[in-house]
């Protein structure tokens, strides 16, 4: 039970003057229960990659195994219904997918499509709305009266109401305020930890990668350039700069200190780790200083 890409390639509009290869021979495995970050530049193929995860796109070559479902270029759309149910994708600017008269109805839309009864779907919707922090009094309002951040939460609740095993998030934090960002990431972390949900998040923010993910997949111009643990991924700043990927802020700071001669016990990836190592260093210095006197 995992996601496995085997030599997957995808070409947009094959056979026309607009032909464009978006994925090029990608082989990668995403383990069950992992929290994976997908990074890469605009146009590196991230969005194409995630659309393969529930069969919105089918590979033009190669095959994908997701749980029990094998997707090949010949797979029929009908066979993918069940997969759509298992893999929830929250697209970029997901507030644009809202359309129902009330928030509650919008959240209940997906479970109803997947065969839940009206009342079951509404119960699910209420529970998921609570989970993402939508006030009960908002449930009967029109989604178009809400603020952008609240609409984003409604969209997230709408995906969670499908009760997917795998949650795919395409830059879910763009345009949210700092509090909204922290709360939303907190929700993802909670889903990952308490419900063992497999999460794949597309992001440009290396701090989020360092703070939340355990695996990193990096794409560049449709090719896979890295698929490893976060520690390995951030271990070579030089390589990251070469591929224009950058470091988390804490690691960036640590790397600059390293250039001035500071030694680290493994590059700290987040502020907590940075603080811990600094405190140890200061203590060591104090001890050395005390002996000298």
């Amino acid at each position, binding site marked *: 039970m995992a996601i496995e890409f085997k030599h997957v390639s995808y070409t*947009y*509009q094959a056979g*026309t*003057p*607009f032909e464009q290869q978006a994925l090029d021979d990608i082989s990668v495995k995403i383990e069950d229960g992992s929290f994976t970050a997908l990074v890469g530049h605009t146009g590196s193929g991230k969005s194409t990659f995630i*659309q393969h995860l*529930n069969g*919105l796109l089918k590979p033009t070559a190669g095959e994908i195994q997701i749980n029990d479902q094998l997707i090949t270029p010949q797979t029929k*759309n009908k066979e993918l*219904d069940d997969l*759509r*149910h298992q893999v*929830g*994708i929250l*697209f*970029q600017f*997901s507030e*644009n*997918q*809202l*359309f129902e008269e009330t928030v509650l109805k919008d959240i209940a*839309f*997906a479970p109803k*499509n*997947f065969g839940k009864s009206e009342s079951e779907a509404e119960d699910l919707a209420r529970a998921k709305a609570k989970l993402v922090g939508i006030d009960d009094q908002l449930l009967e309002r029109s989604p*178009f009266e809400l603020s952008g951040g609240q609409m984003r939460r409604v969209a997230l609740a*709408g*995906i969670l109401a*499908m009760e997917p095993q795998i949650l795919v998030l395409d830059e879910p934090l763009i345009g949210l305020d700092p509090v909204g960002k922290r709360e939303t990431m907190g929700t993802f972390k909670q889903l990952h930890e308490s419900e063992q949900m497999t999460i794949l998040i597309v992001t440009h923010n290396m701090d989020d990668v360092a703070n939340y993910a355990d695996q990193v997949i990096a794409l560049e111009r449709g090719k896979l350039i890295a698929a490893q643990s976060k520690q390995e991924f951030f271990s070579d700043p030089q390589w990251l700069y070469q591929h224009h990927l950058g470091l988390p802020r804490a690691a960036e700071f640590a790397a600059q200190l390293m250039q001035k001669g500071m030694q680290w016990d493994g590059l700290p990836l987040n502020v907590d780790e940075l603080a811990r190592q600094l405190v140890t260093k200061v203590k060591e210095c104090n001890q050395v200083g005390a002996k000298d006197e």
Partner: protein
Amino acid sequence: MSNIILGRYIDGDSIIHRMDSRAKLILSLYFIVIVFLCNNWQTYALLGIFTLACVLLSKIKMSFFIKGIRPLIGLILITVLLQLFFTSGGTVYWQWGPFKLTSFGIINSIYIFCRIVLIVVMSTLLTVTTTPLEIADGLESLMAPLRKIKVPVDEIALMISIALRFVPTLMDETQKIINAQRARGVNFGEGNLFKQAKMLIPILIPLFVNSIKRAEDLAVAMEARGYQGGPNRTKYRQQHWHLADTVGIVVFLALTGGLMLLRG
């Protein structure tokens, strides 16, 4: 979504690409007029060869034009069938109630078919070799005399260029919304007609909401930068009438002469 070819620009550097958009617009319209001069196989052959030459000059793959015709095949078939079964005259081969198959009908339907294909290919040639903005500029410039009779030419041109500019954006967005709703379990293209019509709601509502929002943003952005229409507005892209454009007009006139001679 992606097979709509009519109305898409393909970058290139052929003599047709470089022609002035005004010349191309006039000639495309003029072509539709002279197609109706054809009334025998010689004239259709001449026009066919001419169109083929234009396509070759544009250096755009032939398969592309064939694909452009494909979405219109239903329309063409209906027209051809109507012509085939409802034309009287000549030898009658078969008759059943109001339907009849006559020699005139067969010839007429072949001609109609050629006529539509020629017009579609020529119009496609205009849109694949001219950017939407060039077309809008060309229209504005051609409509300029109408200002005298108080036609809001600048506003019309602005509306056309904004509309053309946002066609790809809207298509992109439609695809995104379709994807988002498919991910939420909507199966497009399934069920009866009523069900399918209902499936349009989750696409159309977000699309309209976004379009209105975008229009407001655009209006604010234009006003913030002091946009003002009117004849005094200068242009970033200047249009230039070249020798090739004059030659184009001459060729079309010669073609008209040829058609007149060959006409039966």
